[in-house]
């Protein structure tokens, strides 16, 4: 059932052009802007030699800021509410690393659980992820293997590309991926036996690359549960300045805020807006009485770590961390989630 093809690297742009023309896809790929890898609508030359993007691709289905509806109300009268739904544009995102594909699986679980989130679903159904396997040595902060992933995982992706030097091996993961590969004008060619053999070898070598690790990950949820009252949290969080970069750059962090933004006062006019929010901020949980159930950085670090490595596991049977390492590499004070988990697990009976 699997569909395997070969794409000459020189013809990557031809495939993207075919997707835009024949498949009505708006194609995005990583671009290096001011030294930062960022997903951008493709320009002339697509290069995919990025280690990983600064931000994960979660914004394609869960943007940093979105309007839910607008309201207009004359005082004393009924308001008029106008729903603002996302556009129906299909977006193909190229160069998604396997850790971020696995991040998308976790976002999907959250936004479909209990009650469907209509805004997330409206975007998500029109997004396709064309992944890129990691077959160069991992970054010092990568740890996907110890949290159930792999540098060649296809979870959450529609297509997986593997760099074979002068060409990409292209595998369909979903029906959407198959349709993208078969799009009119596609330059994809059948994979020869040698290519199929080569990709297996490349994947095998990629998976054998040493990475740092969360120790004994299967035992971690129970260890964290037992750690709730441990004084270690206070020690581990002492350096935290509560900036929240760890969660803003995380491929699985989904917390958000809802606020009304006014655009006029007579009549009352404005928008109800969803924005990303952050469990590292005191206001996030503070009651209007002033009582705060997570009143210090220790409680908030514990929430971030336990959400990813305990609560999410208890609710969905999988860890919420995919080992991308962004929170480790970008933390201004060097708080390292792998070191935190390992230390807490080691010190709890």
């Amino acid at each position: 059932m699997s569909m395997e093809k070969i794409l000459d690297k020189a013809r990557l742009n031809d495939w993207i052009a075919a997707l835009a023309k024949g498949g009505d896809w708006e194609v995005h790929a990583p671009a290096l802007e001011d030294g930062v890898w960022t997903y951008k609508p493709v320009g002339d030359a697509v290069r995919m030699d990025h280690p990983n993007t600064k931000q994960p691709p979660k914004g394609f289905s869960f943007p940093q800021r979105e309007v839910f509806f607008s309201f207009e109300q004359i005082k004393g009268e009924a308001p008029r509410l106008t729903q603002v739904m996302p556009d129906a544009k299909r977006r193909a995102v190229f160069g998604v690393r396997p850790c971020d594909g696995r991040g998308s699986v976790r976002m999907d679980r959250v936004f479909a659980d209990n009650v469907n989130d209509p805004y997330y679903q409206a975007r998500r159904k029109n997004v396709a992820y064309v992944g890129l396997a990691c077959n160069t040595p991992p970054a010092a902060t990568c740890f996907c293997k110890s949290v159930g992933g792999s540098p060649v995982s296809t979870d959450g992706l529609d297509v997986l590309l593997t760099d074979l030097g002068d060409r990409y091996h292209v595998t369909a993961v979903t029906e959407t991926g198959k349709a993208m590969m078969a799009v009119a004008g596609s330059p994809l060619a059948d994979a020869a036996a040698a290519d199929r053999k080569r990709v297996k070898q490349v994947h095998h070598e990629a998976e054998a690359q040493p990475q740092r690790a969360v120790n004994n990950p299967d035992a971690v949820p129970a260890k964290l549960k037992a750690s709730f009252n441990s004084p270690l949290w206070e020690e581990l969080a002492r350096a935290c300045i509560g900036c929240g970069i760890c969660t803003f750059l995380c491929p699985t962090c989904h917390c958000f805020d809802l606020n009304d933004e006014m655009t006029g006062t007579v009549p009352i006019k404005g928008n109800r807006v969803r924005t990303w929010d952050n469990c590292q901020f005191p206001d996030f949980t503070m009651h209007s009485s002033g009582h705060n159930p997570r009143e210090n950085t220790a409680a908030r670090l514990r929430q971030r770590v336990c959400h990813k490595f305990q609560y999410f596991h208890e609710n969905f049977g999988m860890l919420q961390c995919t080992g991308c390492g962004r929170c480790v590499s970008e933390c201004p004070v060097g708080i390292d989630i792998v070191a935190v988990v390992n230390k807490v697990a080691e010190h709890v009976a």
Partner: protein
Amino acid sequence: MSHNPPDNIYLPKLARIAHIKEEVAGERSIKTFRLEFVNGDGFDHQCGQCAMLSIFGRGESMISIASSPLIKDYKQFSIMRVGRVTSAFHDLSVGDTVGIRGPYGNSFPVDDWRGKNLIFIGGGCGLAPIWPVITTAVAQRANFKNITVFYGGRSPRDIMYRAELEKLRGSADVHLSVDKSEEGWNEFCGFVPSNVMDKAPPPDNAIAITCGPPIMIKFVIQNLQNLGFKDEQIYTTIENKMKCGIGKCGRCNVGKDYVCVKGPVYSWAQLKNLPQEY
């Protein structure tokens, strides 16, 4: 006309304020609002559930529904003036239109309590979340044995639902208390947990339902345990800051549970196993 498809959980329905009653005056005043759905486009609820109320331009706030599910014509909310949205509510008038979405959360298992003695213990504005259970039980009086209501406020002026509580005396044993006595107060003087110990309701075939300030709940539960109540016989409701109501915005969790979905109603047997993050 509002565009209000049933599948968009975030789009509020509209409700008109039909009646406002000031329960408690002062800095943290409490008003009870009676809301009627516009054009009958509403929802049913169960005892203990909450609703997200909107004032457009100010935002949303999660408030427990204080009226019995048996009442279909309106829903009632007792709101303390404390934050941005609740303060804006206190400035509204009869006839104003607000947004409402829900219902959210689990509910008190009232049907499982048929044939039992019910003991309600409320303090401050914590009477509102258990009021739908009290009024539902009284409306179905024959289904239950003794109904006892303990309720206390700081002073006689802080007693909410005063007239309703007096009316309740016909169907239930009502024990009121104030922290500080004043001229003319001839009921119990002291904290609510002390009043419970003073009257010492027996635990046999009984369920105790308590809601109030956290410190009150803590000592009420201790005292109930001293009276012989088992953890499975004690119910309470908890609250946390909420934005979505559907387990996604991430802030109301207590351990793995989002209170907006798995709560707000817990037996003490359940709650004692969760981390104390509420």
